[in-house]
């Protein structure tokens, strides 16, 4: 398989810009560190040549950015979408969150992103630069350059990648992949197998670290409310920061519930959490339950599909059956 490179993407973008097909490019740019890649809107090829990056840290799922970006101009915006991003893209279209006509979507292949915390576990602190590739070259303040196999430091969501297939695009670069059989529910199953006390201890340990920075909410492509319910004075639950130990639980349960059936399992919530709370395990629990209770459903697989919580059958299981399934 021919690898899609940074240069190829710039070339594609410049061609589309030159044709006038698009007038902006939603792309990645280096942040403070080379492993800290952030989204950026490019309007010309020069700045792209200078700042555009693509590689093992191009995590950012651009779908959500399209909501605001498509409203800014009458022209189309070019967006690069990895397979998992396309699910969010479709889900947002299902929810009428942006105008498809204003987007030119280029599907790009993905062989997994790298979790910098896993690199840090190996090399320690003081990373100066990281170079993408099957062998990742890491230069640190103390140890010089080290090579690490990419497969050893893949992000959790990429280890358990659910699909290498794009479900939406105008144009595809590289080869199309397939929907994969992932083991993404293994960890949920592991938790389910614990006793209630163990689960409670686990989650208390995780959730008590929450600082209510709202990063999970801000990055989530399903959390696109004009105003979050937790910021709505009429909701009765408005609060800005956790005033007590319960509220973060409430926030995370409700947030997961609100995105249940809409979450595509892109994993951005856990990636951005500064406290490393495995938030995706909440969402995956809902996905796993939905699949088990109501039949397999992948949010974003098809535009216009009816989410499980806005649907029902007369034969659905009872809530009591949902919690007592282990005993049966």
């Amino acid at each position: 398989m021919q690898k899609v490179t940074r240069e190829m993407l710039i070339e594609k973008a410049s061609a589309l810009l030159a044709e006038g097909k698009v007038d902006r490019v939603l792309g990645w740019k280096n942040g403070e560190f080379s492993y800290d890649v952030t989204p950026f809107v490019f309007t010309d090829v020069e700045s792209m040549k200078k700042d555009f990056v693509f590689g093992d840290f191009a995590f950012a799922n651009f779908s959500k950015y399209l909501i605001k970006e498509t409203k800014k101009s009458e022209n189309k915006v070019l967006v690069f979408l990895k397979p998992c991003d396309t699910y969010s893209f479709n889900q947002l279209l299902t929810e009428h969150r942006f105008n498809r006509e204003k987007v030119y979507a280029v599907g790009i292949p993905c062989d997994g992103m790298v979790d910098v915390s896993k690199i840090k576990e190996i090399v320690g602190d003081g990373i100066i630069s990281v170079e993408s590739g099957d062998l990742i070259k890491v230069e640190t303040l103390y140890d010089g350059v080290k090579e690490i196999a990419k497969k050893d430091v893949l992000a959790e969501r990429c280890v358990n990648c659910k699909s290498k297939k794009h479900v939406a695009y105008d144009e595809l670069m590289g080869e199309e992949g397939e929907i994969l059989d992932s083991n993404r529910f293994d960890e949920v199953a592991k938790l389910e197998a614990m006793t209630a006390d163990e689960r409670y201890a686990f989650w208390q340990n995780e959730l008590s670290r929450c600082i209510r920075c709202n990063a999970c909410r801000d990055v989530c492509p399903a959390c696109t409310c004009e105003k979050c319910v937790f910021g709505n004075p009429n909701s009765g639950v408005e609060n800005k920061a956790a005033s007590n130990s319960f509220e973060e639980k409430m926030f995370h349960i409700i947030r997961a519930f609100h995105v249940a059936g809409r979450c595509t399992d892109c994993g951005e919530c856990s990636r951005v959490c500064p406290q490393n709370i495995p938030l995706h395990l909440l969402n995956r629990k809902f996905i796993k339950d939905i699949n088990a209770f109501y039949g397999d459903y992948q949010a974003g697989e098809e535009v216009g599909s009816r989410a499980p919580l806005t649907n029902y059958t007369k034969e659905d299981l009872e809530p009591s059956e949902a919690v007592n399934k282990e005993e049966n």
Partner: protein
Amino acid sequence: MQRIGVFVCWCGSNIAGTVDVAKVAEALKSEPGVVLSTNYQYMCSQAGQEMIKEAVKEHKLTGLVICSCSPRMHEATFRKTAAAAGINPYMVEIANIREQCSWIHKDMEEGTEKAIVLGRTAIAKVNLNAPLTPGESPVTKRALVIGGGIAGIQTALDIADAGFYVDIVEKKPTIGGKMAQLDKTFPTLDCAACILTPKMVDVAQHERIRIFSYSEVESVKGFVGNFDVTIRKKARYVKEDVCTGCGLCTEKCPQKKVPNEFNLGMDNRRAIYIPFAQAVPKVATIDADYCTMLKTGKCGVCSKVCTAKAIDYTQKDEFIEEKYGAIVAATGFNPISMDKFDEFAYSQSKDVITSLEFERLMNAAGPTAGKLLRPSDGVHPHKIVFVQCVGSRCASCAEKGKEYCSKICCMYTAKHAMLTRDKYPDTDVTVFYIDVRTPGKQFDEFYRRAVEEYGVHYIKGMVGKVSPEGNKLIVQGSDLIANKQLKIEADLVVLAAAIEPDKSARPLATMLTASMDTNDFFTEAHPKLRPVESPTAGIFLSGACQGPKDIPETVSQAGAAAAKVIGLLAKDKLTGNPCVAHSDEMMCNGCSSCEKVCPYGAITYSDKEFRGPNRTTLIRRVASVNEAICQGCGCCTVACPSGAMDLKGFASKQIMAEVDAICK
């Protein structure tokens, strides 16, 4: 800040027996917003209500909490009291301290404590109550009846006679429906045409009724009192207002080999046709599937012979838009296909027929001019076997039969058997039955007459196999009483096929947002108390589209539906329930979750302009609730992730306040 008055009722000793009412009133005095808290023997009495009115004046109350019996009992009473005292009726909350407190607890201390909590909860809610005004919407004084069978005809006539305009949409070229195909009707044996056709003429001549025949409903928008309906008038290639119905064209048309659906394909008609002599409207229709002129451009015989110049080969489908206040579904039924029941050899022998086909065979206007002759060879049958419950009460396989009882078969089979024996005493008639079901006036007497006076053989048992052998049909069935397996050599076998709703009902229900059961029968708003209304306001049900029915039942239900429509159209304005959903446009994402769960289709979306930062305008898709359609269930409020959708009278904040008050 509210000024709340709390009134604790004794209900004689009903409440005061286990709740210390004085203590409750005293305790609630200190709740936020409360300016008055008192108790009285019977709050609902004239004196009690006067006391409330006085208190409102004296203390300038803005909200009322009545601690009394269930709101299901007296909420309406106290709302009226509030209105009479000059405050909004929706500023009243009831704390149910009788059914849910004094009556279930024996201990005074326990009861009193709980009554205080319940009072506190109601106060917490009233503090957040806002005055509500029910919405009003005008009523278009015209009704649409979909289906022109006996159900639609009766409903239309009753509505029109009450002084309202009615349109009937009928997909066939004529009104009349299934009843027009019947020969005689049970239990009186009067001829169907004799009692139906005068009604059809009444419809045609009624100044307030319009008939759209050969037409279908294309789309329905709007809500109770205000439906916008598009009707597709299919091209019949004959100018309806010009055609005189002389029938010359139908005699001269050279295309003679068109199966005649009115006689269920047992004879042929021409490509231009009038379904039957008493058709209404009595105009010809060209069947585009068979007309040589329309298919090849060569022929034109009908046009040549038509002296009225009514033929128009260039006619196109026409779309009519009309407003209606009420819609009646009267789409009727059909017998099910016998394809999956070939153990009865329906596909193998022409002499195995359905009961509806038998009606046509017996009918003077039918393919045999009323003589009972075998379809295969035109010979008079001397031995007829009727099989009941073919496809009815069939639970084994959904794609095959129907689980329900089709209700009409027992009676029409008795009728067929009796008529056969009456006209042809030399013909032996056997009926295989599982149960004979005859609940209805004069029904069982009728069935017994068939047995006792006409000598019809009723055999308890079912036919397992029909085998055409030679020119006979070998009917193998069980006689459960004799404990025997019978093999009868029959000349004709008649199958009482199950009936099912017309196929057009399902897409129509979707357009009407009316609900259906798994068998595609329309669901009624309440199976006992609101049997002719759909749960969707403004949609009414008439006839077999709601469930299997015979003619007397259909006609009475048709009249009932008409009465409901008249009741609606008689109003100038509709007052809604003010406890409806409301969407805050500033917070709405336009995600459509609420729209998907709304059982009434009350939520619509539109693109609206909003002010963005830096004097820009943003266009956003936002939801709005049609208050006339919304019934206030609140399902949308939970589907809405942002909390933009809320329910008036049961707002999230109010319910949370109640939760807080209980858990305090």
